[in-house]
């Protein structure tokens, strides 16, 4: 592999070359590995990065915060997830669920998300990363949709040296970021700034341009003709219809939610609100559903003056796909969550005005994917809850109306079907983000988009020009103290409740002060540090075991090697004649460094193992 | 009377050939079928002009001990002989030099001290030696010849012995000694024989030639060699040094290795190491050395290692009396060391048994996987007896359970439990038997353990396995002599004292006392059953021994719970049969047991 290029790219802004603490000053002994065992090591040992759809190098950026290197920290983020400031607020944080610190016995997860924001908040004004693009390729790529996926893809394609045009239907870029997420969660100026930076040089943005065959619309076929490649990133902008047994008879057009006043789909409600429409809600608002949209709707309703806002969910709190903070904050703001119920119909009075909702009680059923549970209606358990406004937020789906002229293959969920590079059944037509995945999260969309961008580039150029690689660098200390492990998770400072509910705009979360950020950053185990015993130098004295904080250093006779080429279980033994090695179980290791400090033969080495993107404008052999 | 029973004491200074003369005398007598027993006394500090005394008892009947008095006393050096002049009995012969080198100062001559009851024979030995050999060095031969002539001993037998003794030396050495001998012999023919010291030809059919005069230490050495000893480690100490010296000479001839170590601790340590490695190994020492060795003996017991300790007791405690005999190390041999460290202790009572027990010691050690102490005393080590050692030794060259006796399907356990409490023993170099042994208490596999059960069980194992030694092959651990059945007095004795015991018993029986004696050859474990059976037959039991505390009596009483009469004293000399006889009489008169712990003279 072309190391020069790897280093070049590395010096393009990965923390590898970012100005760093002493132990990083010498770069001569950095290695790059594509050994599957190293990929597997990272996957196994850096659970946050593994969990992050965009593979953000979380330990690196958190460590930099601890070192008050906010610009570097922001840059590390940007490289992976393009919109750190945004994600630092509204990310669904799969990383935190995976965080080692959250593992049994280790306490609460590190506040990875908010540290991301801290990097954005605390960095020097205007200190934007300046990625150096590849030489121009002369290829033109059209990206449909300026949502998270579109922005991320466009950003990457531009860096690959292509000429990119982003076509957005709405007036403003951002997609769900702008039209879905309420301002109190994502200040619009912050959003605009990040999008502006992301869609930097080499990207043309055309807003207010709809794709379609109608008047003033641009047919997709035409785009396919004009551009070397077209990438659909339109996401899932259609609300899912609420199935109501009482109203099954009505067809699509007579969806009671759409026809009956005071009933509305939350998605539409939010989009219209952010387009600038005047929206009002009654005193009593019933929100159906427990996703982010549902939470947003409920909290907006509170801010619009509703006094009695209830989230009706089919199962219970613990099974709904929003962060704990989200629920907590909603509750603080007076939002009620009522579980184990499914709406069966709308209750109306004589003159047809809605007065309430009829529900059936549920009981918990089978587990479903993503840690959800099935809800099984209980016959004859119906009951009614009165309400003035109903907002339905049970999910979103893709819409395909914009391309009557171009047929592509869809999957059983009617999402676009694509190959490894991201190309649909139509030559040159690619798709990414929710348009392919179905309704997911922002970070999912971004992560997917960047992968597809790589694939698209490969299709265009005929060879792979970016790939993940494991960067290994000696590290002479743990950067941590055992005491850090006992720091409690730092609470996010919040806007006071009354000023929160006064208007829609003010951001509820105030963000970390530098000190708070630093304190929280200390909590990170820095899982990218690899503690290894050099078996050649080991005298099996077990001094390391003696000081180990937990059963993290083991006498082993072997290790399972998985099909993936990585390591499975360490096979422990108490039989001296079978002790092949004393080995640090990185799954257990909390990177406290105590072992390295006491080893009499200094046979415990520390190295940073990071998954980074290696690029090569010439492409890899 | 037709019995010959003559005791000759030759007294001289180192260099006078005292011991040599004694050797020739006793060997000659043995060669013509007499029973002989002899005990030489060497100077504590060899060379210098230390005193040498050679005592030989020649008898046509079996004898078990020296007589307290000599029939003939020969002085080769009056200054040393003076002290022994009273040793000659009344009307006994005293042969002494007539012509000292220089006019002797008053009081320096035996002549002046010869008791009225003695029959003095002045003899110009020096002149005669110089006349016949041009050197005064053969005075001893002159004296010996005179003795032989005076007693009408067969001249030719002496010639043969002299020739044998000087075999390997220059021819004239032998001929000159013979000449000197003849000069003395002829001189004796010229003197009128007062016909008092009687010498009679040996009884008809006394087999000649088979018996050789042998010391206890020599017999021990022969036993070791015949048992195929591989390695020997020793440190010089009187009276055991000669064992080391003789083995140092003879073992290499058979491929054996001998090492003189830096001290007794090292000696026994190496012995244990070699024993552990499968070598037939032994060391030799005396009481003070044994005291140093007890710690290692404990290890041998604990780790179940075969090794042999040849111990010759001397006067104690501490440095005590290096050149005097005593039986005061019994406690040390049987009990010495820390913990419950039972080991095998065997004690020969005569020279043949020195051979027998030294040889069997190796078998016992290997069979029972334990240290074996062969307990002699100076008197037994140094005394000569005419014994016939077997041409075909009775000893097995290998013994004990080896690795082969362990079930190969099972993982090897050095200390595995067994019906006889003896585990198969693997030795370094053997595949499949790798193990580690330790002085720490350990489990069956040898790994240290301080669990209560393990300790109790292993202690039991280490003790139980030794019971087998009481019935090992054809090795008799006790022997009874004298009257059968019920007796008035039984004498229970061990070690060299048993000789005096038999003499005393003979006399007692001659006096009509029903009397029996039992020798105990194994002191640990003690053959209690046999001893109790003996005690059942005895009206009273006497235990004579050469120590102050009555150590054997204590041992017997503690293990049988029965009372015994003690005769224990320490004079540094062998016990006097007369003292034992006196106690036998005392007990025979039905007077109760008494403790006699003073010297013989004070005893009446």
């Amino acid at each position, binding site marked *: 592999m072309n190391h020069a290029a790897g280093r070049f790219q590395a010096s393009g802004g990965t923390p590898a070359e970012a100005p760093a603490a002493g132990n990083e000053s010498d770069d001569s002994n950095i290695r790059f590995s594509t050994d599957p065992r190293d990929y597997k090591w990272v996957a196994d040992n850096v659970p946050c990065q593994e969990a992050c759809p965009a593979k953000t190098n979380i330990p690196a950026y958190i460590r930099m915060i601890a070192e008050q290197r906010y610009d570097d920290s922001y840059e590390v983020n940007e490289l992976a997830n393009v919109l750190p400031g945004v994600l630092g607020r509204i990310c669904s944080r799969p990383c935190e669920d995976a965080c080692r610190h959250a593992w049994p016995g280790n306490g609460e997860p590190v506040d990875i998300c908010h540290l991301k924001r801290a990097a954005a908040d605390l960095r020097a004004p205007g200190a934007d990363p300046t990625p150096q693009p590849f030489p121009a390729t002369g290829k033109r790529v059209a990206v449909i949709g300026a949502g998270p996926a579109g922005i991320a893809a466009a950003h990457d394609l531009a860096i690959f040296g292509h000429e990119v045009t982003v076509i957005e239907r709405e007036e403003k870029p951002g997609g769900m970021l702008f039209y879905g997420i309420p301002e109190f969660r994502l200040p619009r100026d912050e959003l605009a700034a990040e999008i502006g930076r992301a869609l930097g040089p080499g990207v043309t943005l055309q807003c207010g341009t709809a794709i379609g065959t109608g008047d003033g619309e641009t047919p997709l076929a035409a785009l396919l003709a004009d551009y070397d490649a077209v990438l659909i990133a339109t996401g899932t902008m259609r609300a899912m219809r609420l199935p109501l047994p009482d109203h099954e008879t009505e067809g699509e057009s007579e969806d009671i939610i759409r026809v009956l006043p005071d009933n509305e789909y939350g998605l539409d409600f939010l989009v219209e609100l952010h387009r600038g429409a005047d929206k009002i809600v009654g005193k009593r608002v019933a929100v159906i559903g427990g996703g982010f949209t549902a939470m947003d709707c409920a909290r907006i309703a509170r801010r619009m003056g509703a006094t009695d806002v209830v989230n009706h969910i089919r199962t219970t709190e613990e099974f709904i796909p929003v962060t704990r903070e989200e629920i907590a904050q909603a509750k603080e703001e007076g939002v009620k969550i009522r579980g184990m119920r499914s709406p069966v119909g709308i209750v109306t009075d004589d003159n047809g005005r809605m007065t309430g909702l009829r529900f059936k009680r549920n009981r918990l059923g089978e587990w479903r994917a993503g840690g959800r549970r099935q809800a099984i209606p209980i016959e004859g358990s119906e009951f009614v809850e009165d309400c003035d406004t109903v907002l339905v937020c049970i999910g979103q789906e893709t819409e395909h109306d914009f391309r009557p002229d171009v047929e592509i293959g869809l999957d059983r969920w009617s999402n676009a079907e694509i190959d490894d590079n991201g190309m649909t059944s139509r030559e040159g037509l690619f798709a990414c983000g929710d348009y392919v995945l179905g309704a997911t999260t922002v970070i999912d969309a971004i992560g997917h988009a960047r992968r597809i961008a790589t694939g698209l580039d490969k299709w265009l150029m005929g060879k792979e020009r970016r790939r993940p690689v494991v960067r290994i660098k000696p590290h002479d200390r743990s950067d941590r103290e055992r005491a850090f492990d006992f720091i409690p998770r730092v609470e996010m400072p919040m806007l006071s409740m009354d000023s929160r509910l006064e208007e829609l705009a003010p951001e509820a979360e105030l963000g970390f002060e530098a000190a708070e950020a630093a304190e929280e950053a200390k909590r990170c185990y820095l899982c990218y540090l690899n503690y290894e015993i050099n078996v050649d130098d080991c005298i099996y004295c077990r001094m390391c075991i003696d000081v180990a904080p937990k059963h993290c250093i083991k006498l082993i006779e072997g290790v399972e090697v998985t099909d993936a080429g990585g390591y499975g279980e360490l096979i422990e033994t108490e039989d001296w004649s079978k002790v092949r090695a004393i080995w640090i179980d990185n799954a257990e290791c909390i990177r406290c460094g105590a072992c390295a400090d006491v080893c009499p033969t200094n046979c415990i080495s520390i190295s940073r193992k990071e998954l980074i993107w290696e690029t090569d404008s010439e492409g890899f052999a | 009377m037709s019995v010959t029973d003559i005791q000759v004491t030759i007294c001289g200074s180192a260099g006078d050939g005292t011991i040599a003369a004694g050797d020739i005398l006793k060997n000659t007598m043995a060669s013509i079928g007499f029973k002989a027993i002899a005990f030489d006394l060497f100077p504590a500090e060899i060379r210098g002009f230390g005193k040498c005394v050679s005592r030989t008892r020649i008898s046509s009947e079996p004898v078990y001990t020296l007589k307290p008095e000599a029939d003939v006393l020969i002085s080769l050096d009056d200054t040393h002989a003076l002290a022994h002049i009273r040793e000659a009995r009344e009307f006994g012969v005293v042969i002494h030099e007539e012509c000292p080198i220089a006019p002797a100062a*008053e009081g320096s*001559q035996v002549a*002046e001290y010869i008791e009225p009851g003695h029959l003095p024979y002045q003899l110009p030995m020096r002149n005669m030696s110089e006349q016949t050999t041009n050197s005064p060095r053969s005075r001893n031969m002159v004296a010996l010849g005179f003795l032989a002539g005076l007693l009408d001993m067969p001249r030719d037998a002496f010639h043969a012995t002299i020739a044998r003794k000087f075999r390997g030396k220059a021819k004239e050495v032998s001929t000159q000694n013979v000449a000197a001998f003849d000069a003395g012999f002829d001189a004796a023919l010229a003197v009128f024989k007062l016909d008092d010291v009687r010498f009679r030809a040996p009884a008809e059919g006394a087999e000649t030639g088979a018996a050789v005069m042998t010391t206890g230490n020599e017999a021990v050495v022969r036993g070791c060699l015949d048992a195929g000893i591989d390695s020997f480690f020793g440190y010089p100490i009187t009276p055991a040094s000669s064992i080391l010296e003789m083995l140092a000479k003879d073992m290499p001839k058979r491929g054996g290795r001998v090492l003189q170590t830096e001290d007794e601790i090292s000696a026994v340590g190496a012995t244990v190491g070699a024993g552990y490695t499968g070598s037939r190994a032994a060391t030799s020492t005396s009481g003070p050395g044994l005291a140093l060795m007890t710690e290692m003996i404990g290890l041998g017991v604990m780790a179940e290692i075969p090794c042999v300790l040849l111990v010759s007791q001397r006067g104690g405690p501490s440095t005590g009396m290096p050149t005097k005999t005593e039986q005061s190390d019994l406690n040390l041999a049987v009990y010495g060391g820390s913990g419950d460290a039972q080991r095998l202790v065997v004690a020969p009572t005569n020279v043949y048994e020195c051979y027998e027990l030294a040889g069997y010691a190796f078998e016992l050690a290997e069979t029972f996987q334990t240290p074996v102490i062969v307990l002699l005393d100076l008197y037994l080590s140094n005394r000569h007896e005419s014994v016939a050692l077997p041409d075909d030794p009775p000893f097995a060259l290998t013994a004990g359970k080896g690795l082969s006796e362990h079930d190969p399907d099972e993982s090897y356990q050095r200390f595995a439990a067994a019906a006889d409490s003896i585990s198969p023993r693997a030795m370094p170099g053997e595949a499949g038997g790798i193990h580690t042994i330790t002085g720490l208490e350990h489990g069956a596999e040898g790994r240290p353990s301080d669990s209560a059960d393990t300790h109790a069980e292993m202690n039991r194992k280490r003790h139980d396995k030794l019971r087998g030694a009481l019935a090992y092959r054809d090795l008799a651990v006790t022997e009874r002599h004298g009257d059968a059945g019920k007796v008035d007095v039984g004498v229970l004795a061990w070690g060299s004292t048993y000789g005096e015991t038999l003499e005393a018993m003979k006399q007692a029986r001659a006096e009509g006392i029903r009397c029996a004696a039992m020798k105990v050859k194994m002191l640990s474990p003690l053959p209690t059953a046999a001893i109790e059976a003996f005690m059942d037959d005895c009206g009273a039991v006497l235990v004579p021994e050469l120590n102050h505390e009555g150590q054997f009596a204590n041992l017997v009483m503690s293990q049988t719970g029965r009372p015994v009469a003690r005769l224990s004293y320490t004079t540094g000399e062998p016990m006097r049969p007369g003292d034992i006889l006196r106690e036998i009489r005392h007990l025979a008169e039905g007077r109760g047991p008494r403790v006699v712990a003073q010297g013989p003279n004070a005893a009446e």
Partner: protein
Amino acid sequence: MNRTRYVLIGNGAAGNRAAELLRERDPDGVITIVSRGTLLQYRRDRLNDLFDGRTDWRDYLVNAPDFYTEKGIRVRRQSTVVKVDADAGSVVFANGEAIGFDKLLVATGGERYLPDDLLDFADQCHFFDSYEEAMTLRRALPDGGRVLILGGDMAAIGLARKLREHGHGVALVPHERSFRPHLVDEAAQGPYLAALEKMGIEVLAPGPIDGIEAADSGSGAKRVRFAGGGEATADIVLPAYGSVPAVDFMHGTGVEIERGILVGATQRSAKENVWAAGNACQLEPTEKGIHIYNRDLVLQMGEVAARDMIGDPLELFEPGYAQELALDADGGLQSIFFD
């Protein structure tokens, strides 16, 4: 303290008696009897009994060994005195050893007198002066064997009587020294010789001896040839000419010697630290030096000497002169030497 050292040369009656008395009077003195022989003092005068079967020498001892032990009297036997230095007070033995004395008693008795003409033939003869000689003679004399006595002193005549009792033949060759210690002139010998014949002793003709030799090989018998022709054979030839004082070793010591050591009334010699008693001494004044000391007299002498040695002399005693040899009514010999 200073213990007086008494050395008594001679293991006979005088010496032993003196020793006994010295011990009684001087418990601390160091008393040493010196003897050439091997045995303790024994009764030479009783050796005739050998022929009655009393052959064990122990039967002739005057005292058992422990007598000396108890009395603390040392008896140095097989010790031949070769020199005495009276002034230095030392006695030197043949083996070169010297012992010192404060007071010396010479009681060596007499030694066998052998005429010059017999000196060459001594080894063919037997003697009867010591137990050893007596036993040798007895062993050599076969049953009924014949003994030829040359000269014939009283001891030999006593033996002859005993031999006759046991059926031995006895012959005697008279000599001027016959009947010693009695002094009997040859001329006066007739009746006494007759008495001998009466005793069954064959009396041969006197005359000088020419030679003595083995009679014939094997038998051990001896033949005596007489200068005057003629010869006689016997199993035993026993010269018996009496004795003379054994005092040669005393010459040059300063004592006066005529025959014996001349002593005064207290048995003291010319040297004030030297005494003599018994046959070794010669009492003064002598009439021709004739002296016949029987056992009683010898014991007295020893006692007198001892008393004087310890400084407590007895008043002069009258040496009872023994009577001459005599004949009884029926012609039998009468002598103080017959017990």
